[in-house]
C-alpha cells in the first residue's frame, strides 16, 4: 500500500499506527515505513502538540513513541484497579457443574467430577461472586449445598438458569463431540483417565 501524499492523511496514519501498536513504536521503524520523502519526526511532534493538553498524551521514550493516558489523571483512573487472572480448568468445570446441577454439595461435585475438589476452588468462585452457599441438605451431616448467584447470570449474559443449553443443545452446537461409530467399545478397555488437577490460580 503506498503511503498517502497528503500530510493530513500521513498524520492520521501515524496516529492510528501508534494507537493500534502493542508496544512503543521506534521512530526509525516509522521512518522506514513512510520512506525518505516524509519527515516522520515532524509528524510526531505535530501529533504530540495536538495531544498536549488532552486526556491522552503522546510520549517518546528512548526514541520509541506511544500514547499514554495523561499522568495527572492517574489518580482518577487507578481507583478500582483489579488484576485479571485466568481461572483454572478445574474451577471452570466446578462452576459449570454447580450451574447445571445446583443445589449441589461438595461431595456431589467430587463424585460428579471424579476428583477431589480443593478448598481453593470453591473459595475462588465465591470470591468472584458467582456461587454462594445454599440451603443445607437434610441428610446426615447436613452438608452445605452450593448454588449460583444472580451475578453469575449477569456475568455470562444469561437471563435465567433455564437458558443454559442442555446436553443435547451442546452436542448440536458442536461443544460435545459425539462418539464415532465403534466408540462405545473402545474406551472401556482404556485405563480410567487420570484427571489432572491444575494448580489453583
Amino acid at each position, binding site marked *: 500500500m503506498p503511503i498517502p501524499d497528503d500530510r493530513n492523511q500521513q498524520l492520521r496514519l501515524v496516529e492510528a499506527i501508534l494507537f493500534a501498536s502493542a508496544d512503543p513504536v521506534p521512530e526509525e521503524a516509522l521512518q522506514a515505513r513512510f520512506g525518505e520523502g516524509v519527515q516522520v519526526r515532524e509528524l510526531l511532534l505535530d501529533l504530540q502538540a495536538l495531544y498536549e493538553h488532552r486526556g491522552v498524551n503522546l510520549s517518546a521514550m528512548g526514541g520509541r513513541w506511544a500514547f499514554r493516558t495523561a499522568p495527572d489523571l492517574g489518580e482518577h*483512573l487507578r481507583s478500582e484497579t483489579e488484576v485479571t487472572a485466568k481461572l483454572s480448568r478445574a474451577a471452570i468445570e466446578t462452576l459449570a457443574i454447580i450451574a447445571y446441577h445446583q443445589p449441589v454439595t461438595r461431595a456431589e461435585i467430587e463424585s460428579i467430577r471424579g476428583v477431589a475438589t480443593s478448598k481453593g476452588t470453591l473459595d475462588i468462585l465465591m470470591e468472584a461472586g458467582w456461587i454462594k452457599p445454599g440451603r443445607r441438605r437434610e441428610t446426615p451431616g447436613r452438608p452445605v449445598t452450593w448454588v449460583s448467584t444472580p451475578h453469575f447470570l449477569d456475568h455470562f449474559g444469561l437471563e435465567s438458569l433455564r437458558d443454559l443449553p442442555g446436553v443435547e443443545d451442546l452436542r448440536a452446537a458442536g461443544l460435545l463431540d459425539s462418539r464415532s461409530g465403534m466408540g462405545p467399545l473402545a474406551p472401556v478397555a482404556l485405563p*480410567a483417565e487420570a484427571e489432572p488437577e491444575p494448580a489453583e490460580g
Partner: protein
Amino acid sequence: MADPLSPDPFDQPVRDGTPEVVADAPLLLAIDGYEGPIDLLLTLARDQKVDLTRVSILQLADQYLSFVETAKRLRLELAADYLVMAAWLAYLKSRLLLPEPETEEPSGEELAAALAFQLQRLEAMQGVAARLLARPRLGRDVFARGAPEDMPVLEKRIHEVSLYDLLKAYGEHKQRQMKQGPLTIAATELYSIEDAVARVEAMLGKLPSWTKLSSFLPAGWRSGGVKTRSALASTFVATLELAKAGRLEIRQEGAFGPIFLRTPQSQEGGT
C-alpha cells in the same frame, strides 16, 4: 404416486453394458458446491435472470428435475434430500398444470408461493451475509488500542471466563463422563431397522420412479465406514419388510448390482 409427466427410464428395456462413463467431474463438483436442494434451486432460479419475486416456479421445477435427471444418468450419487425435493417438485408441477381438485389442501399456487418465499428469504440471507462480511472488521480493518493500560476502571473483572469457556468445560466433562465406567452402556451409533423403516415409509409415495437403495441413506451416514454399512444394511432389511407388505417394489439387475426401489405402480389410492 406415479409421475405422469415423464417416461420412467427404468421402465424401459434395461440397457446393457455401461451406457455412460462417469467422468463428468465438473458436475460432481457442482453438486458438492450446493448447501442442500434449496440452495441448488436458488442457483437455478438466479439463472432465470429475473427478479426473484417473478421467478417462474414451473420453469424452476423443470430445471431442477432435469438437473436431477442428468445426475442420475451419470449415475452420480444424489443425497436422498435431493430426490425427495425432485419428487415434491414433480408433484408441485402436476398441481400447477392440472385443474385444482376441491380439497382442503393448499393450492398449487400457494405451494409455489411458499417455495418462492423460501428462495427469496435464503437469497436475502446470503446477500446480507456477504454485506456483513464486507464491513470493516475489528482486527482486520479496524483496530483497538494495542496497548490497553491495564485498568479495568469501571468493571471489576477478576476472571476472564466467557460463556463459551463455561459451556465447553461442561461439554468436555460430560464427554469424559460418558467415556468412563465399565457399566455405562452407551447407545450405539448404528442405524436401526426401525429408523430405516420410518425413513423409507416417509419417502414412499414421493418417489415416482425407480430409485437406488443407496439414495435412501440419511445425510450424515454416507461417508463410508461402519456407519454407512449399518445404514445400508438396515435400509435393505427395511425395504424387504415393506416389500413383503406390498408397499414397495424391489428390482435388481444381477448379483451384486445396484438395488432399485419404487412405489408399487398398481397401488390403489394415493398414499
